[in-house]
Structures are given as C-alpha cells and as structure tokens.
C-alpha cells in the first residue's frame, strides 16, 4: 500500500479517535486548553519591531503597538538587538534592518525572510543598538511577554512567575491582562499571581483580601508567602488581628487541599499500577484458575509483548521514519500484534509441552519454570542482555491536569486498555461458544468431555488466550517501564498474589484484588519506601489469607479438593 495513503487513513483514524478519547475521559477543560483564545493576530509583529528599530523619536508609539503581541520571537529578536546582532542597511534607497544569524546568513527583520548579501553590501552596513530609553521601555514588555503567549500554559506559567517575584512593576500588566483574558485557567492563575504579589505590595485591606483569595484559590505556591506573613504577625504580637486569623484559615485550607491532591495522586497511581497488574494477572488467572496450570513462564510472555512492541516500533521507523505522523500509532498497532504473537507461541507450547501436565499443578510449575529460563536466555541471545529502547508515541506524552493534580496520558491510556481487556474477556467468557466451553471444562473436565466438548482444543485456546493477555500487558508495560529479558519477573510474584487473593479462577476477584494490591502498594510507598511497601503488602496478604483462606470469592463446593 502507498505510504501516503496509509498516513492519510491514519490521520483520519487518529482524528476521530482523539476526540473520542478526550470526551471519553470527560475532560472538557482539556479541550478548552487546546482552544486558542483572545489572541490578536500575530502576523505582523515583525514589521512593528522593524519600525521600532528604525524609529527616530517616536519609539514610544511602536512599543505600545508591540505590546499587543505575545510571540516569543520578540524577546529573541530584542536580545539580538541588545547584544548587537542587528544592522541597518540601505536597499533600493530604503533603509532596512537586518539581523545577523551567523557569520554569513542574514534575515530581513520586517518579514523574517533570508537575504543574500554581496561583500560590498557588508561594508555599507552599520550596527544598530537599542538606546537606553528604548531598553527601559522594552524591559517590562519583554518580562510580561509570556502573558500574551498563544499557549495558555505558557501564559499561566508566566503569570505565576510574575506573581512569585512580588515585584510591584508587574501589577499593571497582570491587571490589564486579566481584563482581556478569556481562558478560565489563565484567569485563575492571574488572580493567584496578583494576590501573591499584593501580599508584599498592597495596602492592608488589599493584603487581607489577597490572603482570603489565596485560600479560596487553594494556592499551593501561595502557602509559604501566607505563612511568612503570619509569622511576622505573631512576632509582632498581633495573633488576634484579622490578618493572622485569615492567614491561619487560608493555610489550613491550602493544606487540606494538598492532602487531598496527594490522596488523589496515590489513588491514581494505585489504579494505574493495578491496571497493569490486572492485565497481566488476567492471563494468569485464566491459565491458573481455569486450567490448573501454574505458568511460571507467564512473565516471559509479558516480555514477548514488550519485545513485539519494540519490533513493531523498529518496523514503523524503518518504513515511515521516527518523526512521521504514522509512527505515533505504532503502539496501538502493536497491541493486537503482541497478542497474536504470544498466542501463537503459547499455542505451540501447549501442544508440545503443557498438555502433558494437566492435573499436575506442581509439575507444571517446574516445567514452565524451565521454559521461562529458556525463553529468558533466548531473549538475551536475540536482543542482548541490555534493555531495549521503546519510545512513547507523542500523543501519549503530556499530562492531564485536574484540580491541581497531573495525570499522565500514558497511565490514563493504560487504564482504558485495562477496562477494554476486562470487557473483552468478560464477553469472551460469557457470550461466546468458546467461553461456554472454557467454563464447562473448568467446572468439570470429565463431564465436559463426555458431553462432547473438545477438551483438548479448549485447553489450547485457553492457554493461548492467557499468553496473549500477558503479552498485551507487556506491550502496555513497555510504555511505563523497561523492556528487557527479565521484565516479566518483576511482576510475576505480584500477579500470583493477585490471583491467590482474588480466588483462583475468579476474574472479578482478580480485578478487585489487582486494584486493591495496586492501591495499597501505592499508598504505603510514600511513607515506607518501595521495598518496605512491597514487604508490608506481602504480610498483609498472608494475614488476609488467615481471615479468608479461599481468597475474596472462594468457589463454594461440596466436593473435597485434594
């Protein structure tokens, strides 16, 4: 197929997909961020600047004109002008200004175009420098340039920077920007910046009001400033004053907010770790619970997923190049490919080795451990012992900010995949013939066989399914972790725990326990550190099993298992 056509199709797919993703995650705010608001067309700051450089006496008007623009190029050009990279030159009897980019390349400032110069031209040029008056006028313009930037995030950052400097010079610029700003997030940031700045520069009423505003805005950077204010109040024995009361109030508000954000953060990280555990342990729950096979090589199927993703990535780079639009989609393509590759390998293993091991769980554990060693060494021989580099596609970079907490797109995407995997597995087990057969074999192998269910075929398919799910987990892991020969080993112990806690063979249980273990792990980590957190989780599991030996949802049965 024609690469151009493919790229075109992908663009269409991506467009529809992107919108769905965004609305699906319910973030209208995010959509707003992409919307460029209230910008005066940035087309011609070049010519205004050009006028300013060549101006003679009327610099003030040009500076005023320039104030509407927010292009970062302005500060760049100003810097060049200040340091002496700008020259005047007469062309066709008209004076124009040029900027020297390197020793032999020049551009016209009025248009930004490159210009060819002869050696005689060079002699007729004279260096231009910003005069002291212009420099004074330009200073605040350059400092507040970021306030007018096109990107709302840059505007927010710039506003905060101006506010945190607590410099009274910037107050007018912030106030005037507030009047024309339409983006809500930026408005909030400017309010916050103004309030912080006013803490140092305002009248007593303004200070009191700012303290209250900061409390209402739950400003994390403002906390230290308010704290400082409060400390001086206490030092000067005015602990009963309205200001110190308001400060205490504000500080407690902000601290409550920080606590909440941390809680949400832990919760979010727990959910995303849980999602990875979920995808990987679903495969394990299927082979372990439904078939009675302890697949110690499950971790290596995870690695197969990671390596397949790596190969798909290499393949995309070789065809479309790393900067192409199509490259961004390699990850989505690699998910089903990983599944297929691992499923085929799993099928092969089932036919050659695993099928001798049904009903011998301990032997299956040893045998698959052997397979796992062989596969790990195989990876080392093929791909090398070092980790391979898997890049994040561009659209997965970046964060989604909700109420002060950043959630990375990668982790959100992983959660989405986990949801999809759960739904698809549920559909497969509940709504298809194969699923019916799998459940029948799981409940009673002999009875299912005598009713004409092709038990051997069902076994093969189930094992392949489990391996495929592991590989999807590996593919997902490649986006947040390393891809290496022993990447699966780090998760396999956790996944076995998930399966044991969630009751063997119970997918709902596996889901709940994956999320539970993931969250507990993340909640313990900040206070205990990763290692002690893991160990504590392990002991919690042992204690949990004292209370519920059969896991969360034990199978009720009158038969005696031996």
């Amino acid at each position, binding site marked *: 197929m024609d690469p151009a056509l493919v790229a075109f199709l992908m663009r269409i797919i991506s467009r529809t997909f992107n919108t769905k993703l965004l609305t699906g995650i319910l973030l209208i705010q995010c959509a707003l961020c992409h919307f460029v608001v209230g910008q005066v067309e940035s087309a011609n700051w070049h010519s205004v600047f050009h006028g300013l450089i060549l101006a003679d006496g009327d610099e003030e008007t040009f500076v005023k004109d320039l104030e509407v623009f927010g292009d970062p190029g302005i500060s760049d050009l100003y810097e060049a002008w200040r340091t002496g990279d700008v020259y005047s030159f007469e062309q066709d009897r008209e004076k124009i200004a040029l900027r020297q980019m390197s020793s032999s390349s020049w551009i016209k400032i009025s248009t930004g175009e490159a210009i060819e110069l002869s050696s005689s031209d060079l002699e007729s040029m004279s260096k231009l420098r910003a005069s002291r008056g212009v420099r004074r006028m330009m200073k605040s313009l350059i400092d507040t340039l970021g306030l007018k930037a096109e990107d709302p995030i840059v505007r927010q950052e710039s506003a905060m920077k101006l506010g945190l400097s607590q410099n009274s010079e910037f107050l007018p610029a912030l106030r005037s920007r507030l009047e024309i700003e339409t983006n809500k997030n930026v408005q909030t940031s400017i309010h916050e910046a103004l309030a912080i700045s006013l803490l140092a520069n305002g009248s007593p009423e303004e200070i009191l009001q700012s303290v209250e505003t900061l409390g209402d805005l739950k400003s994390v950077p403002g906390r230290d400033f308010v704290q400082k204010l409060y400390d001086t109040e206490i030092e000067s024995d005015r602990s009963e004053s309205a200001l110190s009361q308001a400060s205490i109030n504000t500080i407690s508000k902000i601290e409550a907010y920080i606590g909440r954000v941390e809680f949400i953060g832990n919760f979010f990280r727990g959910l995303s770790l849980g999602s990875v555990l979920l995808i990987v342990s679903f495969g394990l729950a299927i082979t372990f619970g439904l078939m009675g096979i302890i697949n110690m090589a499950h971790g290596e199927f995870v690695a197969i997923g990671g390596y397949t993703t790596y190969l798909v990535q290499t393949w995309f780079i070789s065809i479309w190049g790393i900067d192409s639009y199509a490259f961004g989609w390699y990850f989505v393509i690699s998910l089903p490919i990983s599944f297929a590759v691992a499923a085929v390998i799993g099928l092969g293993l089932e036919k050659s080795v695993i099928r001798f091991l049904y009903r011998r769980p301990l032997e299956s554990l*040893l045998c698959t451990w052997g397979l796992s060693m062989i596969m790990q060494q195989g990876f080392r021989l093929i791909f090398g012992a070092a980790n391979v580099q898997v890049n994040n596609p561009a659209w997965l970079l970046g964060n989604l900010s909700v109420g002060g907490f950043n959630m990375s797109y990668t982790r959100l995407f992983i959660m989405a995949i986990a949801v999809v995997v759960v739904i698809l597995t549920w559909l497969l087990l509940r709504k298809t013939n194969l699923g019916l057969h799998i459940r029948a074999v799981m409940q009673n192998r002999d009875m299912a066989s005598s009713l004409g269910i092709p038990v051997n075929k069902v076994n093969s398919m189930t094992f392949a399914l489990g391996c495929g799910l592991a590989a999807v987990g590996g593919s997902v892991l490649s986006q947040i972790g390393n891809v290496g020969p022993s990447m699966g080993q780090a998760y396999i112990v956790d996944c076995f725990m998930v399966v044991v806690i969630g009751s063997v063979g119970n997918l709902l249980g596996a889901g709940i326990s994956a999320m539970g273990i993931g969250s507990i792990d993340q909640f313990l980590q900040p206070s205990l550190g990763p290692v002690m957190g893991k160990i504590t989780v392990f002991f919690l599991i*042992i204690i949990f099993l004292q209370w519920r030996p059969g896991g969360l949802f034990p199978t009720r049965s009158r038969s005696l298992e031996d």
Partner: protein
Amino acid sequence: MEAWRIVSYSFKKPRRLTGINWMYLSDNKKEIGLFLMIGVLLMLIPGMNAWGPDSGVFAVSSFQVSLWGKYLTYAVLAMSLNLLWGYTGLLCLCQSLFFALGGYMMGMHLMLMIGERGAYQNVLPDFMVFLGYTELPTHWVPFYSFWFSSVAVLCVPGLVALVFGFLAFRSRIKGVYFSILTQALTYAACLLFFRNDFTFGGNNGFTDFKDVLGLDLNLASTQRILFILSVLLLLLAYVITSGLLATKFGKIQQAIRDSENRVSFSGYSTTSFKLIIFTLSAMIAGAAGALYVPQVGIINPSEMTPAKSLDVVVWVAVGGRGTKWGPVIGAIVVNLLKSFATRAYPDSWFIILGMLFVIVVLFLPDGIVGLYHKIRSKFPQKASLKAITA
C-alpha cells in the same frame, strides 16, 4: 500435649517394620554399607588433598576441596527440600531463604571475627563503617560468641519456618498455593536483605572473612576440616531423614503426601505434622548454609532469590524426589554440569538448565534414581550399586 504426642511418634517404629533397625537408619543392610562407603569415599578428597601427590590424576587441589565442600552443602540443602517435597508433598520455594539465613547467621560471626583487620581497621564490619554506623547494632552483639551463632544458625531459619508455616498451614494453604506463598516469602526477604539499612550489608552482603575459632579460613587444613564437617552434616541429615521415615511419624508424613484428607479424617492433626517437618527442614537447610559460607567466602542476598530456590527444586527433581540418595546425586550432578557448561557454553547454560527442567518433568518423573531402577528392572542381573554412586 498434642504436640508432644506428635513428637513422640518420631521415636516409635511402626509395627510392620522388621529386620535390622540400627538407629532406625534403614531396614536394609545394603544401604548401611552404601552409607558408610559414601562417607569413606568422600573422606578421600581431603585425604588426597593433604597427603596425595601434587600433580597427576590423583592430585586434589585446595580449590577442589572447597568446591566439593560447596557441593556437599548443596546436597544437604537438596535433602532438606526432599524431606518436604519428596516425602510430605510440600513444594517449598523458600528453601534457599533458610539456607541463606543460616549462612547469614554464621556470616555475622565471621564478620565480627575479622575485628580490626578490615579495610577500615575498625572494630565494626567494613560495610557498617562505610554506611556510617558508630556502634554495633544490638542484635549483632551476641554473635561474638561462636556458640550463640551456631544455635542461631539452626534457630533463626527454624523460627521463620515455624511462624510462616503456622500461618500458612493453619489457613489450609496447600499444594500450589503453598509454593506461591513461599516464593513470595523468599522474594520479600530477598528485597529486605538488599536494603542497606537492614544492617546485613545490603547488596554486597558479607565477605572477606578471616578466621573461625582461631583457624585461618585461607589455609588448606581449615578447608579440609570444613569439608569433613560437610560430609558429617550430610551423613547426619541422611540419618535424620531416613531415620524419621522409618518411624510412625514418617509413615504419617508420607500419608499426608499421598492423601492429606484421609490422614486428617483418621484423626491426625496434619497441620502439626507439616509444621514440624517444615521447621526441621528449615533447620537442616540453615545448617547447610552455615557450612557453605566459610567454604565459599561470601554470602549476599542473591543467594536467597526465588530463582535459587527453584534451582534446589531442580536438583531434587533430577536426582529423584522421594528417594533417599536422589537429592544428593541431583545436587552434585547438576552442579558439575553447571560448572562444566558455564565454562564451555556460557550462553547456553540457562537453556540447558531449562531443558533439564522440562525433560525431567516430562520424561523422568523419578529422576536419575528412578531411571536406574527402571533400567535395573529390565536387566536384573546387571544391577550394581556403583550406578547409584556414579
């Protein structure tokens, strides 16, 4: 009282058994002969090292003495696992943890014996100086005593097994679940020992030992003594396991392996039996670890990874689980193969080991000993004892 009744089983011989029953060692004259023969054969190694020729086929270097000493401690480790897996049906994946714990207990004593001869010339072990300790942590102090350390070598792994086993067996965790949980226990412990602030040397563990009980560890004579101790430990472990098997306790133990439910329906507390076996096995593994450390000269957390535990399982499986000598044969054969293969085919060693797992599980469920019995039953006249010891 219940516990005492169970322990008393280990001194009662079942009525069925007749014949020679010297120390309940065995009901088989041939086996006593074999037992003594192996002991004597193994004693030959230090003997050859001390008085044998310096070169030629019969020369035994000091390196080989400590190498074979290491194999013997591995063999004891394999035996302790066999007691659990082969005779009680508990596939324990934390045997290397007990082994390493025993090693760490002995290592602590050896570290303290270095005294001021370390790199920092400090009374504290080097790694503590390096990590900024100013005084010895309290739990290290008793390890100045060799006898305390020797007791700890047995008791610490035993205690860990007792507590973990109590929790696990009480909630009726058995079969594969037991394996998975023991694997997780090893994993957790391994993570813990990798930490620097756990006062056990972190990643690097203990090394650079100087002497034990005044004997310089670098001397060949000390290595010979350690080797002889390893042989004695092996024989002792053999006496304990096979002696136990010949008693009523051993019969119940094997009955648990074959059908735990029937045993418990017959009125026996399977939990207590399993707990005692588990603890005993951990203590034997700990003792093996304590002899391993001075012979190898280093102990670190990589000794207790889950992978090491599975290595022990493969030794037992290759040798033949549920057989008396199988684990010993398996441990020595696999380790000889390993030292050969890691030199000749360094890239393929893991593939070879993996294939061993698969082949043994699929085709040789009773390992080398099982293979020998199978062959002997086909050619009864050609049977000889040498095949076992080979």
